[in-house]
């Protein structure tokens, strides 16, 4: 029976090449976009190198100060002073990494301009992040306190600045008119990792801006590492109680900040943001609705195509009914045919996604970014295929099964 369905399905698909192409294109294209998009999202939000501890980390990326009377508001990263004073001193986190946003500086090598993104960090930064050291090691607390001009550079920077040499630890690199001694070289991070990406990492104590300035706002972010995932609520609570006692800068009367999971920490200051998890659930909700709507298009397309195909096949329907197929049997046949079609669409879509990701990874569109297919997404894509097949098959099949035999035979 199934083999027979398969035969007829293939025959119908072959006969209606254009419709088949449109259907397959709709399904596979939608699926490809979904998989590639989620690979991007996954790459940006997932616990990838070097932020592999995101599961047990909380981020403080934005502070918010408000003046209720004048409806004014200031959002932005924290000052070093703030993070060092109020966050590093928290008791519940195991470690607190503090680092500045990366900022581009120019350097010249053999009269060629090279843009180097510079990031200031504290020592715990190297414990919270799991950078892979290709040579050397991070700078120590002692070196930071001494204000040594010492640096960790990325592998790309090593290549660009020093060329193809085996060893650069102990050599000097110039950035922003300052000579830094190289302490270590780490595997490069893609720019999509906003917190951990940089070309040159140096101690915060060598920063030209005054890291002791006591205003709350600045350009530093913190990562609070818990001993385990279970510690995170405690850390959140402790930080919240500290925040409640902090007075905003002059001119403001409300101060808001929270320690959130990675994505939530960026959402907090947006309209999506809320104080519980920074709005992630809302984002997921909106994302799901978007994905559903997105998948609805090829489904509607398929339903449409299927209905017109039914009319073409009314003679077949009539014959099958005349020789003993019940309405339900025909519904079954049509759904199976449709699932076969969507299955092919899915296979093509998945193959296409792998191909596109491969091309994207090789093209170095974003340096050092490595996109991978999220297995969960892959699984749900396959489930979506079945749903596609059912959705787009059921209604036309139901209409078909209700055709009177005589009517079906006559309509030719």
């Amino acid at each position, binding site marked *: *029976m199934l083999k027979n369905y398969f035969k007829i399905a293939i025959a119908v698909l072959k006969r209606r090449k254009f419709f088949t192409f449109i259907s397959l294109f709709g399904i596979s294209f939608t699926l490809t976009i979904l998989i590639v998009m989620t690979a991007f999202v996954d790459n940006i939000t997932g616990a990838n190198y070097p932020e592999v501890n995101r599961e047990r980390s909380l981020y403080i990326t934005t502070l918010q100060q408000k003046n209720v009377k004048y409806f004014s508001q200031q959002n932005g990263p924290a000052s070093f002073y703030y993070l060092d004073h109020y966050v590093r001193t928290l008791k519940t986190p195991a470690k607190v990494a503090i680092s500045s946003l990366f900022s581009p500086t120019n350097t010249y090598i053999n009269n060629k301009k090279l843009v180097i993104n510079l990031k200031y960090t504290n020592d715990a930064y190297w414990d919270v992040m799991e950078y892979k050291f290709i040579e050397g090691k991070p700078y120590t607390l002692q070196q930071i306190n001494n204000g040594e001009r010492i640096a960790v550079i990325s592998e790309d920077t090593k290549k660009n600045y020093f060329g193809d040499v085996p060893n650069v630890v102990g050599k000097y690199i110039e950035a922003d008119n300052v000579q830094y001694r190289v302490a270590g070289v780490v595997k490069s991070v893609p720019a999509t990792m906003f917190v951990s990406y940089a070309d040159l990492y140096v101690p915060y104590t060598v920063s030209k801006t005054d890291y002791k300035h006591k205003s709350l706002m600045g350009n530093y972010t913190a990562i609070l590492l818990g001993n385990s995932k279970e510690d995170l609520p405690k850390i959140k609570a402790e930080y919240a109680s500290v925040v409640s006692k902090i007075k905003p800068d002059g001119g403001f009367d409300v101060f808001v900040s929270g320690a959130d999971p990675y994505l939530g920490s960026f959402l907090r200051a947006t309209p999506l943001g809320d104080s519980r998890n920074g709005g992630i659930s809302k984002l997921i909700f909106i994302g799901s609705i978007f994905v559903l709507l997105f998948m609805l298009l090829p489904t509607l397309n398929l339903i449409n195509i299927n209905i017109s195909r039914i009319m073409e096949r009314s003679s077949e329907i009539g014959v099958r009914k005349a020789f*003993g197929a019940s309405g339900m049997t025909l519904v079954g046949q049509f759904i199976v045919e449709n699932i076969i079609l969507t299955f092919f669409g899915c296979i093509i879509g998945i193959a296409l996604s792998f191909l596109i990701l491969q091309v994207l990874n090789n093209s170095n569109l974003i340096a050092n970014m490595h996109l991978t297919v999220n297995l969960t997404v892959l699984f749900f894509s396959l489930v979506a295929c079945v749903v596609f097949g059912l959705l787009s098959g059921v209604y036309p099949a139901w209409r078909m099964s209700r055709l009177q035999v005589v009517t079906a035979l006559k309509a030719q």
Partner: protein
Amino acid sequence: MIPAETSENVLQNSHIINHQNVMISLKNIEKVYRTDTVETLALNNISLNINKGEFLSIMGPSGCGKSTLLNIMGLLDAPTRGEVSIDKHDTTQLNDKKLAAFRNRKLGFIFQSYHLINDLQVLDNVELPLLYRNSSAKERRQLSIEALEKVGLSNRMKHFPTQLSGGQKQRVAIARAIVGQPEIILADEPTGNLDSAMGSEIMDILLQLNERDGTTIVMVTHDENMARKTHRLVRLFDGTQVQ
């Protein structure tokens, strides 16, 4: 009108005698087609008994209701009024699923325009009725080959319908109609699209089926010569039985 009714009564009476052997029984069948503006009375109070093993032909001018009558006998269409019994089963109350099973077991159809499925090979076309029974693939294949042998087409199994002549297509259609060994075959102008040589070939196959296997056959035809070869002739005029 009066002579028609009397002759019908006579016919009916003659069949009541061997009531045991009635295969198809139509009682006061009326069929009205309603469209937005017109009401067509396609069949007007038709009562007819057809015996087991009988070969009946139906004749009449175009549009007089022959196909409608045959479709109602074959449970492809429901009458507006009246009862259809097949092999002593009243079919009026059967639901879609039961009707389908009934058609599958009892009935085989042959249409004027063949109605083969062009996407399937000859063998798969012939197998069709067996798909809706519990039979294994091997069994289906075996029976289909046998049916094709009966109509002399076992060398065309792997062809597609579009590669066959009209006569060959109709023979495939006959193979499909007989593959499930139904007790009744309903043929609506089976030779209507064929030249006379091919037409008589088809007719010979049907006669053989009737004589050898005892299959009850009802055939609509325009050909007096063919009708003459059958046991009984029913004539319709404007939805009414006139002979």
